[in-house]
């Protein structure tokens, strides 16, 4: 009987050529970004805008800036774009830096191009700072609401936080005495609480027992706050604050930020509510990680995708709001130029000097378009269902 020598079974071939190329999540994101023409062009326009705004701020600030946005030349008023200044009547040092008025002049003879450059930086900072504030608040509140959910705050906690928040508000609202009283009570209460915890007293004394009663669920509290804020039409709220207080750039940024956190809060809360039930959270808890660490290090990075999209779109919206406020006269005080007030100055001359309307209008359109395209493109890219499955 012939025995066929049976070779030992060959090892399985695990050939890298037989698999599609593997990519890290970042390079995958970048690749999808390049593929998505909308998002990519949005990003490109934004990059160009950023450089121009930065350059603009540098070129138009200071005592004797390269491109002077505030230089009044009454004899040159309402000149069309690309016109050359009248050399005979021009005072020394008043000529535009490039020899021509690239975007014409306004009704006070100021160089519109220089003013546009000055306004660019304002728009940019307002957009980013306002959104930064609103996203920070949104992530904090949304994360707490989503993670702690049904757990209740105690009466004592709520009292403390109400006093702590009321104190600075009262102080700012010209009732400093009340503010200081509130702050003092809050601090005293906290010190007392800390002392009792230190001395490891088992239960609070009877007369203070009511402070430990559950007052309201964390989720319920945050959502009620969101509902209350949503009852105020945000534009009017912003208008109220900006109109009643002396105007300044920072107030505008802060107010826009403080009135637009509701959307982000809802998004983050929704993401947390679903992520909280996933196994990686249970695993983290089983490892004994603290709640704070779980929230910020483990869940948060997964929840951020929709926040990124909403933040990008929010920047566009904040810039639009700022332009609207400037248009109505409530923006940064003159003579500082913003795109909104250039348009506002120009509205009396729409038929005679349409460039005063079109220059800021078209530029705002392009910049907002860039942000909106990028934001929507991001939404498509970050959508996990559309990612390549290896």
């Amino acid at each position, binding site marked *: 009987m012939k025995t066929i020598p049976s070779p030992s079974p060959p090892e399985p071939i695990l050939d890298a050529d037989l698999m599609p190329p593997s990519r890290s999540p970042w390079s995958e994101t970048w690749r999808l970004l390049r593929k998505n023409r909308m998002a990519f062009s949005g990003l490109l326009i934004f990059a160009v805008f950023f450089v121009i705004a930065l350059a603009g701020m540098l070129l138009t600030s200071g005592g004797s800036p390269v491109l002077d946005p505030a230089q009044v030349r009454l004899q040159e008023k309402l000149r069309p774009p690309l016109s050359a200044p009248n050399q005979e009547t021009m005072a020394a040092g008043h000529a535009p830096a490039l020899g021509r008025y690239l975007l014409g002049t306004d009704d006070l003879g100021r160089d519109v191009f220089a003013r546009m450059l000055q306004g660019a930086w304002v728009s940019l900072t307002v957009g980013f700072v306002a959104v930064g504030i609103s996203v920070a608040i949104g992530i904090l509140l949304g994360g707490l609401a989503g993670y702690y959910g049904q757990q209740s705050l105690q009466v004592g906690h709520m009292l403390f936080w109400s006093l702590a928040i009321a104190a600075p508000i009262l102080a700012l609202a010209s009732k400093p005495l009340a503010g200081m009283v509130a702050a003092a009570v809050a601090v005293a209460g906290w010190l007392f609480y800390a002392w009792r915890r230190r001395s490891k007293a088992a239960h609070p004394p009877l007369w203070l027992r009511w402070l430990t009663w559950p007052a309201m669920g964390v989720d319920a509290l945050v959502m009620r706050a969101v509902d209350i804020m949503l009852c*105020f039409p945000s534009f009017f709220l912003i208008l109220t604050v900006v109109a*009643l207080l002396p105007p300044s750039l920072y107030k505008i940024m802060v107010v826009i930020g403080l009135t637009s956190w509701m959307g982000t809060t809802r998004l983050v809360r929704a993401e947390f509510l679903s992520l909280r039930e996933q196994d990686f959270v249970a695993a983290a808890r089983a490892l004994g990680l603290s709640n704070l660490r779980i929230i910020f290090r483990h869940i948060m990075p997964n929840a951020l995708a929709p926040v990124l999209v909403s933040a990008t779109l929010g920047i566009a919206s904040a810039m639009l709001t700022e332009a*609207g406020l400037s248009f109505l006269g409530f923006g940064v005080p003159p003579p500082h130029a913003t795109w909104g007030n250039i348009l506002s100055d120009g509205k009396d001359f729409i*038929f005679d000097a349409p460039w005063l309307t079109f220059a800021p*209008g078209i530029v705002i359109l392009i910049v*907002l*378009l860039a*942000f909106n395209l990028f934001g929507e493109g991001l939404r498509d890219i970050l959508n996990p269902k559309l990612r390549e499955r290896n």
Partner: protein
Amino acid sequence: MFAFLGRSLVQKAITLFFVSVVSFLVIHLAPGQPSQIDPLNPKFTRDIVERMRQEFHLDEPLHIQYVLFYRDLFVGKTVSWRDSRPVLGKIWERFLNSLPLFIVGTLLTWTFSFPMGIRAAIQRNGPFDKSTTFLSYVLISVPGFFFAYVLIILVVTRLNVPVIDMQTFGVTSDSALVQVMDRIWHLVLPSILSATGGIAVLSRYVRGQMLEIIGQDYVRTARAKGLSDDGVYYRHALRNALLPFVTMFGLMLPGLIGGSVIIESIFGWPGMGRMAYEAILARDYPIILTLNFITAVLVLAGTFVSDLLYMVVDPRIRL
């Protein structure tokens, strides 16, 4: 189901209470006095200032003021500080001005958004979809005040017709028909303006919803049954895709008050948006607070109505 609605009503009432408190505090804690009662205002003598202070209970502590104000509000006694006319009367007047603008704008928005969005979804990535997508982005990004002026320039220079305000100067001497047509004509431009932004946003939302539904398993089942494209899209997909929009109907209620300050300013339209704006500038607290309260009521009523509609329309939700 009724238990849920009952609870919801109670919650909303509580929210309303908090809103009224917060808005009251914000107004009264803001620095500066309304010009009418500012002792430094040279137009008023001391007596008048004193009398106004008494009449408007400004001497009382804050919480008493709060109670008195809202009591007056519900009774209808609240009076504007600028011209001593009843607040509710003034609001009603302006409301009647804003209403046609709101109705026409909303009609335009909803009539155009749905066909656009649905067709864009069905012919995804086709020429219609690509062009309407781009158009939507442009319309979302264009600042309203800029677009308004562009339209005004176009209409006035090409068509030579007046567009500002609600009616042309001197038209009251013409016949009723001419007046009506004039009114309608003046409505056109501002309505188109407010509609374009709305169409851009809503049609994108419709498209997104429709696309998501088309990808669902039950749409594939419908195809597997041998249904025609019409049956698949307009019967199975649409019915599901439209669910969230039925509820959006309720959320449109606050738009009644909103109006756009900017559009109304540009077109000189005496609507509620401008009224709120003027009241803020003049620190006319009764008007501000009343408008705020009405807005809050509308917002809460709107969410309540949309919750209700959701329960009616979606068979999965029978609380």
